[in-house]
């Protein structure tokens, strides 16, 4: 450090002490490397589940058409059947892609996503053992889609509810 009032002569070389700074800098670097972890972005799906004994607001709403999605599973929790109302969608191909295209046509019939928001709702009826990721895939298929080239999300039906849970077989 330069000392005020004392001018160095031409031959005198002032050297900064770099060691403490490098020590601290490396400590900071190690701290940030240790605490760093890449976390995937998370998002939420809204579901409408009015509390028990609170049906007053529902009466004021316009009667909505309920599309019933039924998902059956085997004992391991894997999806074995997916139905929209009475139509079986798990016969061939990706059942969730089939569900998405059916929902898309229903929304188009209703006049678009804004109209569908007032007219349509989806109720999920699932087996107890069904693995939860199937439900999220089905909710994604019903809620909309994201185009590959742009980040834009096309919304479909966001009024989602669950049918009362089915009790576990044998309990």
């Amino acid at each position, binding site marked *: 450090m330069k000392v005020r009032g004392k001018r160095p002569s031409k031959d005198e070389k002032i050297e900064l002490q*770099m060691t403490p*700074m*490098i020590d601290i*800098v*490396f400590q*900071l*670097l190690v701290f*940030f*490397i240790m*605490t*760093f*972890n890449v*976390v*995937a*972005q*998370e*998002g*939420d*799906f*809204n*579901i*409408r*589940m*009015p*509390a*028990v004994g*609170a049906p007053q607001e529902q009466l004021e709403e316009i009667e909505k058409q309920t599309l019933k999605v039924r*998902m059956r599973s085997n004992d391991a*929790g894997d999806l074995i059947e997916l139905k929209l109302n009475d139509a079986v969608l798990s016969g061939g191909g990706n059942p969730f892609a089939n569900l998405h295209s059916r929902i898309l046509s229903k929304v188009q019939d209703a006049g678009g996503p804004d109209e569908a928001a007032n007219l349509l709702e989806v109720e999920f009826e*699932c*087996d*107890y*053992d*069904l*693995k*939860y*990721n*199937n*439900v*999220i*895939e089905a*909710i*994604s298929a019903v*809620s*909309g*889609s*994201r185009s590959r080239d742009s980040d834009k*999300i096309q919304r479909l039906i966001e009024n989602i509810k*669950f049918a*009362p*849970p*089915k*009790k*576990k077989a044998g309990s």
Partner: protein
Amino acid sequence: MPKKSRGFGAEEAEGDLTPMIDMTFQLIAFFMVLVNFTQAEQDARVDLPASKLAKPPEEQQEQPLTIQLAKVPGSTSDFIALVGGEEIQVGQELEGILQRERRAFGRMGRPTKSVIVIIRAHKDVPTGKVQEVIEMCQREQFERFRLRAKEDDG
């Protein structure tokens, strides 16, 4: 870096530290910008299901209630609930905690109808388990639920 010379005291070789310090500061800046301390609600035992539609909410949620359903390590079929750092079984224990949370929100002047319940469930949790949790929350007058998923880039 001073290097001891043999024999000739006047000779001194010094390494140039500037590029190393430049790089180190850049690395520190990179990690500082990306560091994320808001992981209180995350648990390594919860592997969320992936969805292409899962995008972070744009508005900040006013103190939600987060319930996590995590996989018990080493087990394929056992799951536990995590609420505010407490590990509990889905059943009477969870009911007790929900009642306590309801009273706590009440003391803060927030009716349970306005409280958002975020459910972070492991992808392999039986759906019936998630529905049981929702049903318990409903009994405590919670109405607004959000099912959390992680973003799927593939």
